[in-house]
């Protein structure tokens, strides 16, 4: 069994599911659904298998390294380590839950599920790729299905949002591509796009300090748009508001993580001088700005989904802060925060979608008395909100705590301001809960036609795993950190922290 | 033209040059298209003369036959067919004339400047360029372009016929 290309199979499986979905006639909706479910299920199962094979602390594992395009020096190099494993888990789990959640999707189900699985190809690939070009390929693949998800099933301004999403991300990624070319061009004698090789080269001082600053800037732009870091975030609220539920879940749950992952996998370990030479501080400041800005904007949003979108910006600020710290705690925190944010925000977007489906509105001003009308949904919403506002004991706290700890280790005077975000975050979530959940039911003309029904079984099946994760990680994050910490420590060591 | 009479050659050159330039301008500024075509024929004849002056007699002959003859006839034919009449040449000008003139003048200065720097005198051909020489060239060294040119003509023929033939239906 040792020569099974586990990771390649993990990428090939969704491709196969895609092809299968293409072949099935659109009219056979049931078959389409079953195929999507079985497909994503098998992918997830395969990922669990990989999880069992993974040895915590063993560095890069299950590597596959083959020549691909010799002319441009591109290789097919995959591998998995503590940093990527949790994110791959997200990328295999969330689509499965999305398929379950949207079981009743009746507008073009074939295209819908096809796009989800296609998205999965890119998402898994990004976290597995160890070659810059390969990474970039997967990075870009992700754009297309998400673009269509927004464009076809989105809200009223879907076209604007879809294009905005695509263009913003693309601007970032082409500049990132230029950075990658710089890395390659000034790299070792035998030019290579190999991430690990270039990382070692960078750590050995291969790149001049001044050059590092520039390359970091180029990579930064690519990752910053994706995270998104202020002031490159403006695409996010639009994309989230317009995207269908599943699109939002995957966008917030996985796509945003690609940026943070990029920093941790590439920018930081490869360009330590740039990090020490000012980019670290800049990131810290931006991280704090993200935290406070996201929370401040979420505070007065009138649209529930937009509020959650801005909360995402705030939470990703903690990721940035942790990255900026570059210490073991910070990197642990950033990585964990990415995972937990995926879980929690995924949950929140699911819930927003459920509310919208029932009330046909996302306006905070129009929703009332959910606790009375849809108690189960409300309890989950309360749970998710508390998890999101960083309640200790739930998953959100651990990542934030460790990120902050990292921040305080390196930039106590900057990190100080991040603490404000904690209060603001609590404020807008509580305001939201107070307004829509814990409020008396008032007969509203606009909602008179809506017939609220409580959570459906398939929705609960999608939510319960996320809730369990959120609880488990908050109560006992040790197993996860055992996986994460060696990788994080290695990065911290490279940065001398 | 025999080189032994240099003075004569100069006279002929200037006459032909004046003809070429003059008829060109006349063609350009004539208000009547039929006149225009006639001036064009005249200018092309002047060119034929110049070619002959340079010793390319075969080419000069072709110029007379193909251009001054055949092509101009076709042009006149089309002019007659389309019944395009007389017009004030000012009305025929594009709005961009001034700009075009400026560009052409600037361009011309540069071009003439470049050409003026080119001084070699005309070398005498080692062997006269006879029809036979050209025939040999066309069938040996330039066989490929020659054949391909024939294809071009064929293609043009097919195209022109196809485009024009509809008239009869």
């Amino acid at each position, binding site marked *: 069994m040792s020569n099974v290309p586990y990771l390649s199979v993990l990428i090939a499986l969704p491709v196969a599911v895609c092809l299968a979905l293409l072949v099935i006639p*659109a009219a056979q909706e049931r078959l389409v659904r079953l195929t999507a479910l079985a497909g994503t299920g098998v992918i997830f199962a395969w990922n669990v298998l990989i999880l069992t094979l993974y040895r915590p602390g063993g560095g890069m594992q299950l590597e596959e390294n083959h020549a*691909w*395009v*010799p*002319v*441009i020096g591109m290789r097919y190099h995959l591998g998995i380590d503590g940093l990527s494993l949790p994110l791959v888990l997200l990328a295999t789990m969330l689509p499965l839950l999305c398929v379950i959640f949207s079981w009743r999707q009746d*507008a*073009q189900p074939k*295209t819908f599920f096809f796009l989800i699985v296609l998205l999965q190809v890119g998402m898994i690939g990004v976290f597995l790729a160890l070659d810059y*070009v390969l990474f*970039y*390929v*997967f990075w*870009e*693949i992700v754009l*297309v299905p998400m*673009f*269509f998800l927004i*464009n*076809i*099933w989105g809200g009223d301004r879907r*076209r604007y949002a*879809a*294009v905005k999403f695509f*263009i913003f991300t*693309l*601007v970032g990624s*082409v*500049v990132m*591509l*230029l950075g990658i*070319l*710089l890395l*390659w*061009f000034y790299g070792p004698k035998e030019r290579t796009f190999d991430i690990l090789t270039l990382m070692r080269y960078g750590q050995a001082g291969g790149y001049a300090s001044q050059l590092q600053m520039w390359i970091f800037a180029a990579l930064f732009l690519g990752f910053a748009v994706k995270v998104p870091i202020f002031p490159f975030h403006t695409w996010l609220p639009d994309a989230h508001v317009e995207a269908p539920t599943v699109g939002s879940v995957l966008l917030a749950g996985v796509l945003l993580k690609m940026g943070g992952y990029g920093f941790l996998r590439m920018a930081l370990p490869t360009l330590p001088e740039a990090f020490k030479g000012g980019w670290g501080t800049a990131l810290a400041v931006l991280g704090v700005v993200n935290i406070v800005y996201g929370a401040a904007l979420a505070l007065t949003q009138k649209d529930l989904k937009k509020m959650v979108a801005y909360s995402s910006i705030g939470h990703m600020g903690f990721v940035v802060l942790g990255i900026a710290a570059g210490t073991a705690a910070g990197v642990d925190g950033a990585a964990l925060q990415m995972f937990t944010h995926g879980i929690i925000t995924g949950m929140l977007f699911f819930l927003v979608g459920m509310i919208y489906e029932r009330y046909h509105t996302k306006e905070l001003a129009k929703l009332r008395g959910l606790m009375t009308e849809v108690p189960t949904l409300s309890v989950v919403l309360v749970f998710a909100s508390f998890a999101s506002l960083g309640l200790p004991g739930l998953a959100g706290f651990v990542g934030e705590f460790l990120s902050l700890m990292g921040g305080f280790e390196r930039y106590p005077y900057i990190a100080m301001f991040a603490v404000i975000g904690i209060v603001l975050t609590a404020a807008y979530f509580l305001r939201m809960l107070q307004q829509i959940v814990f409020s008396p039911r008032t007969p509203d003309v606009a909602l008179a036609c809506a017939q609220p029904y409580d959570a459906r079984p398939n929705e609960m099946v999608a939510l319960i795993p996320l809730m369990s994760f959120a609880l488990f990680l908050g109560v006992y994050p040790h197993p996860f950190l055992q996986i994460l910490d060696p990788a994080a420590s290695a990065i911290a060591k490279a940065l001398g922290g | 033209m025999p080189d032994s009479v240099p003075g004569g050659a100069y006279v002929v050159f200037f006459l032909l040059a004046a003809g070429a330039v003059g008829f060109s301008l006349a063609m350009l500024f004539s208000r009547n298209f039929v006149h225009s075509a006639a001036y064009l024929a005249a200018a092309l004849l002047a060119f034929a003369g110049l070619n002959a002056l340079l010793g390319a007699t075969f080419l000069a002959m072709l110029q007379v036959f193909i251009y001054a003859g055949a092509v101009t006839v076709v042009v006149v034919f089309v002019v007659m067919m389309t019944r395009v009449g007389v017009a004030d040449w000012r009305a025929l000008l594009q709005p961009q004339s001034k700009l075009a003139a400026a560009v052409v003048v600037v361009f011309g200065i*540069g*071009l003439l*400047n*470049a*050409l003026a*720097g*080119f*001084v070699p005198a005309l070398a005498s051909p080692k062997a006269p360029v006879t029809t036979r020489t050209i025939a040999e060239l066309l069938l*040996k*060294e*330039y*066989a*490929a*372009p020659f054949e*391909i040119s024939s*294809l*071009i003509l064929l*293609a*043009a023929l*097919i*195209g*022109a016929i*196809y*485009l024009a033939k*509809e008239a009869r239906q």
Partner: protein
Amino acid sequence: MTSSLIAFSPEILLTACALGLICFDVLLPERKATVRWIALGSVLAAIAASGWVAMNAAALYGTHFEGALVLDAHTTFARLLFGTAGALVILASWDFYADRSVAEYFALFLFSLLGEIVIVAGTSLLMLFIGIELLAIPTYALVALLKQQEMAVEAGLKYFLLGMFASVVMLYGVSLLYGALHTVSYLQPLFVAPGTLTPAVRGLVLFGFFFLMMGVGFKITAFPFHFWSPDVYAGGSTPVIAYVSTIPKVAIMLALFRILGPAFASEWAAGRAFIAALAVLSMVYGNVVALMQDDVRRMLAYSGVANTGYMLVALAAGGEDSYAALLFFLVVYTFTNLGAFFVVLAVSGQERATLDDFGGLGRRGPSLAFAMAIFMFSLAGTPPLAGFFGKFALFRAAVVHGYWYLALIALLTTVVSVGYYLKVAQEMYGGDYALSAPGAQLARVAAPPTLRLAIALTAVATVLLGVVGVRFM
């Protein structure tokens, strides 16, 4: 001589078939349909012959016909690519000229195709000129093939007037170069650094070069020589435009590399800077203006201008790797662009094609829309489609040769280009059709099976070139 005939047997075969096709039509005017098979068969036979010649490369490679034509790897590459593309165009236009013009159409098409190969195989500016003319003259007529259509005739006339203008200017340039350099053959490097020229001829070389580039730039639609293309593409007969917009560009780019490659190797700064400037302007202008188009063919014309810019990046960068990258890019561009025009043909027929025509195509013709999406995203440079690897290889080559700014501008304009490629995708999979009526109630797009086959082939090529083909770059 015999070996020359064997070496160029594919071309001779094509010529013979083109002639035979006309004769056939004249003799059996009622059997129009058979003409198509002859055309397709001749192209396929030419491909086969090319393959056979390539297998005997050692014996046949070299110059032929007194050095007028050269048979080498590039020629073979061009033959195979043009043959394939030609076959695809024939397939796509299978049912569109089945009336009385079919013989003329296919004959002219084959002549034009021959011209392309002459351009690549030629060794001198004379052959280049003649090749260009053989390519161009049939297309003037082809563009206006639907002469009952006013816009087609207008397109033909514009194409002709500007094309002839460009040819004449180019010819003047050739004459200046001939006078200055005493030769027009580029078997030996034609352009050398002007510093090594005597001042007397330096001016002539510069003017000659510029005029030459004007003629060539016209055909590859490089800014500012591209002005004809949007008008002609928007008015002409679509299958012809599919052809005109791809293969001539490829042929000229290959020839340009032959002509200018050595010159740039000897660091001719001005020439290089000119090409680089054309590249930048083409990329910027093409992409920016394409954003504002509602007419799909016109949009694709501007996209073509932009793509020419990308190709010129490789030319400016120079070097072996740039050339390899360019070849790959050209192959990709050929299939992608052909495919895109084929879909336009399928959707709008020979009429004006607006973005609205693509509304809801995702439901009215899912497979067509899927293919179009592949083409659009490939043109936009989205991995893992071929377009990405083509561009990536080009930009990488630019970086290697120190053209950072070209790579950066290319990347940024690529972003702009996404704006209009996405517009098509949005129309197809969005708009009012997206979710409203059930699929069955929409009027489905009917496209002839051969056209579908051609589209499928180009789409598969676009995907496979990216995922698999890139290995062989």
